[in-house]
């Protein structure tokens, strides 16, 4: 009998899970972000934050290859998703599980079928195995009771939770979550934070979470970057608690301390 395993169950690749290099992105002639560079290390929970309309979700959509950046590069496991085409790009995209803001459930499938969908498409697993996997994922996000419901019958929070379960379904070890806890009740949001931490600890998942929910940021984030729509740049990066207490930029302190504009203007005066 061999010795007990000491594996921490993390992938062994040395390259960062996601690496953004000199990114310039926007829509048409409107630039949202210029010369942005940052890495998301394997097994890390990175939070992208910033006020509404600063380009958080757009940055995530660039990272998953849905939008083409104006300049710069984005590497997934060391391979450029910007340069990749066809099946190469699809293979890189399959390394990432994505939860969209609205949940993006397929309306013609029930919750269980939605979560099972990537397994149906890409594996040879038997139906029982796929159903069990999907049910376990739903159990993780406390949605097992709703497996037979159609997306049209779900609330916004339920859609998000089902979306997270589907994002995890194909064994993607990089999960991108767009506003996962917005609209959830505090207990469900806290449970979701716990699920994220558990998945990182036990399955070694890497998370990129777009959010502006302060409690979730402090609960889960190893590091955060903050986008600013005025300077169109990353104005802060680091651990959330350090940013809250020691950031030199007033806008960062204002965000973390949840202050209205007037209070900051008065403090600066």
């Amino acid at each position, binding site marked *: *009998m061999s*010795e007990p395993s000491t594996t921490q169950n993390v992938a062994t690749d040395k390259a960062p899970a996601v690496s953004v290099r000199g990114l310039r992105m926007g829509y048409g002639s409107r630039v949202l972000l210029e010369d942005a560079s940052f890495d998301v290390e394997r097994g890390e929970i990175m939070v992208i934050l910033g006020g509404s309309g600063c380009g958080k979700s757009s940055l995530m959509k660039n990272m998953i290859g849905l939008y083409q950046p104006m300049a710069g590069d984005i590497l997934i496991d060391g391979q450029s998703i910007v340069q990749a085409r066809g099946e190469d790009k699809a293979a890189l995209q399959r390394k990432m599980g994505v939860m969209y803001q609205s949940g993006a459930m397929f309306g013609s499938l029930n919750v269980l079928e939605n979560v099972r969908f990537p397994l149906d498409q890409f594996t040879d697993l038997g139906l029982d195995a796929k159903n069990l996997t999907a049910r376990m994922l739903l159990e993780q996000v406390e949605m097992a009771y709703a497996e037979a419901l159609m997306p049209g019958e779900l609330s916004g929070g339920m859609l998000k939770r089902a979306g997270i379960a589907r994002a995890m379904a194909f*064994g993607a070890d990089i999960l991108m979550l767009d506003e996962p806890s917005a609209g959830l009740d505090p207990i469900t949001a806290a449970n979701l934070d716990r699920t994220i931490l558990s998945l990182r600890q036990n399955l070694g998942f890497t998370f990129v979470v777009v959010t502006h929910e302060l409690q979730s940021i402090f609960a889960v984030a190893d590091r955060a970057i903050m986008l600013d729509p005025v300077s169109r740049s990353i104005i802060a990066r680091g651990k959330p608690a350090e940013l809250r207490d020691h950031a030199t930029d007033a806008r960062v302190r204002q965000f973390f301390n949840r202050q209205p504009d007037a209070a900051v203007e008065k403090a600066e005066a």
Partner: protein
Amino acid sequence: MSAEGDAAGANAVSFTLEGRITAGTAAPIWKTATETLARNPNRPIVVDASRLEYVDDVGIALLFDLIRRDRPPNAKVEIRDLAPNLAALIGAYDPKKFVPPAPERAHIGIIEQVGRATDQQIAYAQRMLGFLGSCTRALGLAFTRRGVLRWGEVLEVATEAGANAVPIVLLIGFLMGVIIAFEIGLVAQQFGAVIFVVNGVGVAMLRELGPLMTAIVFAGRTGAAFAAQIGTQKVNEEVNALNTFGLDPVHFLVLPRLVAATLVLPLLSVFADVVGLFGGALVMVGFDIGFVQFYYQLLDAVTINDFLIGLAKAAVFGLALAAVGCERGLSTGAGATSVGLSATSAVVTGIVLIVVIDGIFTVLTS
């Protein structure tokens, strides 16, 4: 997964899980493992997990599937040397929660099916009657009280449903005239009665085919659009927003469409009549009936009543199609699929309805 063998002690069967078990690699491992369990229902199973390198959520599900199975006390499955974090993860699931649900009642008797279908139809008829009552009240108010009907929106709907539909209506109308004249002409030629083809084309176009074909085009183009527009507004909770402002969705969303459709369909029908007759006249040239001869024969063959009956039919068709489209839209459930179903249902119900109305008209006016 390595081959099974006898484990040390007792009569246990053992096998080893090794390497990476992920969504992409798990299928054959899972199949072999479950077959091993099935082949040895009364022997304990020992799974050696010491050489596992990585598992994803599918691998976790596989490990959980092995230990959750209902087996005799002396034939349990034991996973040895599993990393503590994975053991904790699997231990967090309660096997009782994953018992397959009892199968639903498989067979529903024919009487129950008929009963359910009847119940649904009665409910639908009640909804439709309620909706028609609301529409009638709204139309009554629109023509008796100023400001109820928003003529700007009526014009907008009429432009989209009417003016933009003219090319397709002209094409369909022209082709119908050509086809009818040609088909009847070939038969009439054998009896030397070619001149009476003009009578057939005239009556058919003015009383039947002009309004009917225009209505079918209208059902596919505009009835479906009404259902999809209002259905999307329902899904987006715009209809709820109107209700909470104290505004009646029937006044706000349905009334302009009803009025626009009722006014526009007769006009489209006139276009179809004219080009249909022109198409018929064009074909008759090939049967040695000139345009002038066609014109005078047409004046003898049809009366102003044929034309007016066609117009009245078209107006009723427009009203019915708009009502069905709007009702289907307001009955939309939740989600994008429901919007699609509403649009489809609006077209099918609309076409059935106009054929029924056409039949009633024929009986009443013959």
